């Protein structure tokens, strides 16, 4: 029962209107091969969750440029003017979340928590619609978990059991998203046998990963 599939097989699992988490930070650690597949397939009305909206022709930006995104949940859109344009024109909904809160909300979903209290955003627009809770003499916002239908990850080295090793700054949101989606798909730079990644060096245990697809450049 292999987890390794082709891009075509991967794409059969991704439909219009789904919510999709996409790993990466300004393109580093982002599964570009799968994103290209989504663009070719033309899946639309997507809710995309990711750190940023990349650049116009890379990362999450490619989905936006091709108008496949209905809603974007992210921390930063400054590097992609097309995101701002679609937001200002009302073509796409953008929910801006502080980066640490975004990471923690995703972790919280994966960890089975009902939410967490953070000081981030107190006294700002981020407060809107959220419960405030005071602990001791300090105010916190109650932030809720964030899940998705699918998580798309990029792994530097992936073994056949789905264990993932991310090189350097490619790790970022990937290990968090691996825990927070119904279906988890990793795009692998390299696929190796079980045991070839030292169990101490695994950054995402294979139990989280449903499908592995080899990157084709």
């Amino acid at each position, binding site marked *: 029962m292999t987890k390794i599939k082709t891009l075509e097989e991967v794409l059969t699992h991704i439909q219009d209107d789904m919510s999709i988490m996409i790993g990466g930070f300004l393109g580093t650690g982002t599964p570009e091969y799968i994103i290209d597949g989504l663009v070719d397939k033309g899946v639309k009305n997507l809710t995309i969750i990711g750190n940023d909206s990349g650049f116009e022709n890379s990362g999450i930006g490619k989905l936006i440029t091709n108008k496949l995104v209905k809603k974007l949940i992210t921390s930063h859109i400054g590097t992609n003017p097309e995101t701002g344009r679609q937001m200002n024109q009302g073509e796409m909904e953008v929910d801006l979340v*502080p*980066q640490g809160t975004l990471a923690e909300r995703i972790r919280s979903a994966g960890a089975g928590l009902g939410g967490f209290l953070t000081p*981030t955003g107190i*006294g*700002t627009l*981020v407060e809107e619609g959220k419960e405030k809770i005071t602990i001791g003499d300090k105010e916190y916002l109650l932030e809720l978990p964030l899940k998705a239908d699918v998580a798309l990850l990029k792994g530097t080295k992936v073994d056949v059991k789905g264990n993932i090793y991310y090189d350097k*700054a490619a*790790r970022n*949101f990937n*290990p968090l998203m691996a825990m927070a989606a119904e279906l988890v798909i990793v795009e692998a730079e390299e696929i190796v046998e079980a045991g070839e990644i030292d169990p101490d060096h695994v950054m995402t245990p294979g139990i989280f990963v449903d499908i592995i697809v080899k990157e084709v450049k």
Partner: protein
Amino acid sequence: MDNNQIKNIIAKRVAKEFQNGFVVNLGIGLPTLVANYVPEEVEVILQSENGFVGMGPLAEAGKEIKDLVNAGAMPVTLVPGAAFFDSATSFAIIRGGHVDVTVLGALQVDEKGNLANWMVPGSMVPGMGGAMDLVVGAKKVIVAMTHTAKGAKKILKQCDLPLTAKEQVNLIITEMGVIEVVNRRLILREINPHFTLEEVQALTDAELIICEDLKAMEV
């Protein structure tokens, strides 16, 4: 002073705030320049919110390493003893008070220590990225910015742009001087000798309280 000189005056002064062993996060833009002015005898550990500590200088052209980039996607280097982690851990470090100093730019800052640097309603909305967490979590928040923007004042009685965080700024460093936020008042601690007190106050909306021990800013 041209814009480049101004930026370097500010960056040089910011670097003096660092002590040996400090964990420091430098924002994108002007704050990045601060790394160039850290004295050799002061060892500062640079945190990059995309997931590591022990960031070194920008990578030389042709020597870029895949997946080794800073939070602005610029190829960088590492110093010995660096360590990578995921984004939840990166912000545990930031929010948890394990960063000694964060240096950021600002659109506006006010006498209460309020900071606005993530959106101008109706026009520019880059998003807050990691700034809201950094400003709330770091032990010391330094705003490093030009004193005015195209003639408009940026140090205000009250920010009118959406805030990044409430009452978190500790120090404001511009090309005109060094201003500390103490109990919702602004204390001018150092002044650039090229300017008079009157000139600095004229370009500052909030009232500046002149420190008894006012010093000349080294430029």
